[in-house]
């Protein structure tokens, strides 16, 4: 699929104009914006004073208070900070399932753009990084022009490799400087320990797990019967099995067990977890993620 153009639906973006992204925690970001920051800095609202220490900017000295008290105090203001949205998009081969459009990657890209659109509209920063074996970093973007470039990038991105969520989390952890909202959009077809590790690693941020699946992944179609050669879409590993109704039941049970484990991980770390069928409308998925549904 590398090099092929991905079909990304952007028709629904304008419907998102009236929605904003609420943040549970105060954000920590180097860029100023409309969200309440955990930091005190150069905002307009005075919070308190502190004693002057050598090296502090002279501009921050409250001369009026000096006149009254003859002591040097520094004025401290509430600092307004921008939201920093980091979207980690799974670009492993498994995301190319199913064969028809949209596949999981296209759907993931669509909802990533939807979320980014809302962020972009509030002039916040967003960063969409794809990951598979490794993370493909992009710089944080802001503004409408950058947004269009993002769409173009996503539609032509190469999707291959195996999901290695733990490694990717380790790798990106150091790159996210301020406390951000981290959205992981993936099929999470990875080792559960690896997923748990990744969640643990990124749990310092406002982390959201978005799990995408296709119905045929869980319930194998009727045509899949008899001797079947299963080929792993990520590793190309082959596996012959005799498929019957019993097998299909066992398979579905395994899948559901995996999903239950994901839910448990999210519960353990008290982070939101969304399991989304790619047959749903992307806008619904986006609204679910931003908490409007």
């Amino acid at each position, binding site marked *: 699929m590398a090099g092929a153009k991905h079909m990304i639906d952007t028709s629904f973006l304008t419907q998102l104009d009236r929605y904003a992204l609420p943040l549970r925690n105060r954000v920590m970001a180097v860029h100023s914006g409309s969200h309440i920051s955990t930091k005190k800095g150069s905002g307009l609202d005075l919070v308190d004073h502190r004693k002057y220490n050598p090296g502090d900017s002279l501009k921050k000295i409250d001369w009026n208070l000096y006149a009254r008290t003859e002591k040097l105090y520094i004025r401290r203001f509430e600092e307004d900070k921008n939201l920093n949205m980091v979207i980690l998009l799974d670009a492993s081969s498994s995301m190319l399932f199913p064969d028809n459009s949209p596949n*999981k990657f296209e759907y993931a890209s669509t909802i990533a753009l939807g979320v980014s659109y809302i962020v972009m509209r509030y002039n916040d920063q967003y960063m969409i990084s794809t990951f598979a074996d490794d993370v493909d970093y992009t710089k944080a973007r802001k503004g409408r022009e950058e947004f269009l470039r993002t769409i173009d990038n996503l539609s032509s991105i190469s999707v291959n490799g195996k999901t290695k969520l733990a490694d990717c989390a380790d790798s990106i952890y150091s790159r996210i400087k301020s406390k951000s909202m981290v959205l992981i959009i993936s099929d999470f077809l990875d080792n559960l320990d690896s997923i748990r590790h990744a969640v643990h690693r990124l749990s310092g941020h406002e982390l959201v797990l978005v799990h995408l699946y296709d119905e045929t992944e869980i319930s194998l179609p009727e045509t899949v019967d*008899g001797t079947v050669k*299963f080929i792993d879409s*990520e590793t190309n590993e082959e*596996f012959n099995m005799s498929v019957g109704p019993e097998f299909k039941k066992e*398979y579905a049970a395994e899948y559901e067990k995996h999903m239950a484990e994901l839910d448990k991980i999210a519960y353990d770390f008290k982070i939101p977890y969304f399991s989304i069928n790619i047959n749903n409308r992307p806008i619904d998925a986006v609204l679910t993620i931003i908490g409007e549904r």
Partner: protein
Amino acid sequence: MDYEFPLGLAALAGIIPLTIVYLLKPRPKQIILPSLMFVQRISQNVLASRRKITKKITDPLFFLQLLALILLSIAIAGPLLDSISGNSEKVVVIIDSSASMSVPDRINTSRSMAIESLGEENTVIAAESIPVVLAKAVDADNAKELIRNMEARSTSADVPKSILTVVNDEENQNAKIVVISDFENWAGRAPETYIKIANAKNMQLEFRQVGKPAVNYAIVNGYLKDRNDGTYEYTCTVKNFGNESVKLDVQLESKSGLFSPQKVNNSMSLDGFGAQQIKFFSIPQGTSTVEILNKDAVPCDNIAYISIPEITPKKMLILTDLDPAASKSPLITALSLMPDIDVDVQYKLPDDLEKYDVVVIDCEYEPLSSSTVRKIVAYAKSGKDLIVIGNGCLYNSSEMHGLYPVLPVDIISIKEDDSHTIETSGSGKHIFEEISFDEVYMSKYLVAVSRENTSVLAELEGVGPVVCAWNIKNGTTSYVGLSDTVENEAWNNFPTIPTYPVFWVKLLKYMWGIDDISETNVNTGRYQAFDQSTRIKTPTETISSKFVYYDECGIYNLNQKTVAANLYDSAESNTFTEKRLNLAGENAEIQKEDLQTRSPDKLRKYLIYALLLLLVIENVIMFRRKII
């Protein structure tokens, strides 16, 4: 395991291409799945051994087809399984009781074998010319006693018929049938055929052969020829069933109530397996025997019994309008020639009519007087024999019409016509077999119609009866529409043909109830039934029965008839044959083996059921896979 058709197992070779097809053919559907991890997890639950196999061939269709192929080939081969338990509770013993079994060692050995074979419930059958059931479903003790008392009879044996009788009896299902015979005279299909038939009906059939070759001399193919002078000519063949030359003494002995006994001795030399035909002329009425005096293995074929019915002299009156002194009509000539008949030719009716056994009326021109006719009618009605010749006078004269009530026909008219031939009918076909009616030309005749309860023996084609008889009390009145007028006024040429006298002999024998010689000289094995219980004196005992079964050689007295019964069966007399059914040696083992491992059909049936089930399952699978 043995198979009925071992080559059927060659179908198993089909496993090789089937396996190759499944190994080579990229049959598995390829499904690209992101979640193979779950498939792998499931497969870990499967046993390691099964995983190994399924790595190669995983399609259950392969295993179904493999199993179907194996079942099919086994079904074709037909495994022979014991369908009957080794010690059958039900046993049917068929013992050959034919003449050849009278060779001393044979019947004794068969008795021992039969007793050895007995089970809990036994049926004993003597295989003679017909199967004779001696005992049905008796216990072993009773069967033993019966078998010990069994003797060989003097008949030929139809063992295959006995086997089929037993096999076709539904009551013998699951029975073990033991056939004990010398197999000298086997007139059926190969024994294996009967084994298969028995097996098909869930019975076990076992053949046991007895006896060794034994030298025997026999009289075979004996027959009698009527010389039409009251005596017969006897012809027979004396055979030496041995490989060495022998000098045989043959003796003819005749006994009769009418004549003094006669004895004729003769000697003949026969080579090994040689035969010689001998003839005895003028065998008189009564019983005679032709006997080989030399001792041999089978006694019953050494004596040929001959029975020629004894005819007591009869008095015959011929009433005719011809002057007996002047000339003799062909009728008078023919009847006068007959032995044992005292013919009295009269123009007028004698007073002592009752002394005559039979009256013949042959009036051509001059009719009998009315009183004579009345007396004749009364004579016939009293149960005496009467013969009326159909001349013109019988129709033209009103006096002669008085005879009509006793005639078996109604006389209609006289006709001149030469386009009709005489044909025998009914029992006349047999009686007048030797008469050349085809040489007879009729130019003038009486048209007659037969009455009810008459026997038409000969008729003029398309006209009506010419020889007809009926019974009045104990007598018989016959109408013979064949005028014996000769010369220019002749109505037909019958009196001129050579068999004309024979016609009268045959007709009188018929009227007097003297049977054909073949009725008094029969072959053993014949079964004859009577309308009522009859006292029968067999060669060994006297019984009262509604039937007689001639199973002994000798003289039988029944119904005032003397019947001679003879074996006359060279196959049965030949006790020196080497060409018996080969049931000895290696074949015996095969036989035995075959007998113990029978029906392939029982298992075959279940194999086919299983096969059908597999096909149904296979179709269901294919349907689910949307292959069909």
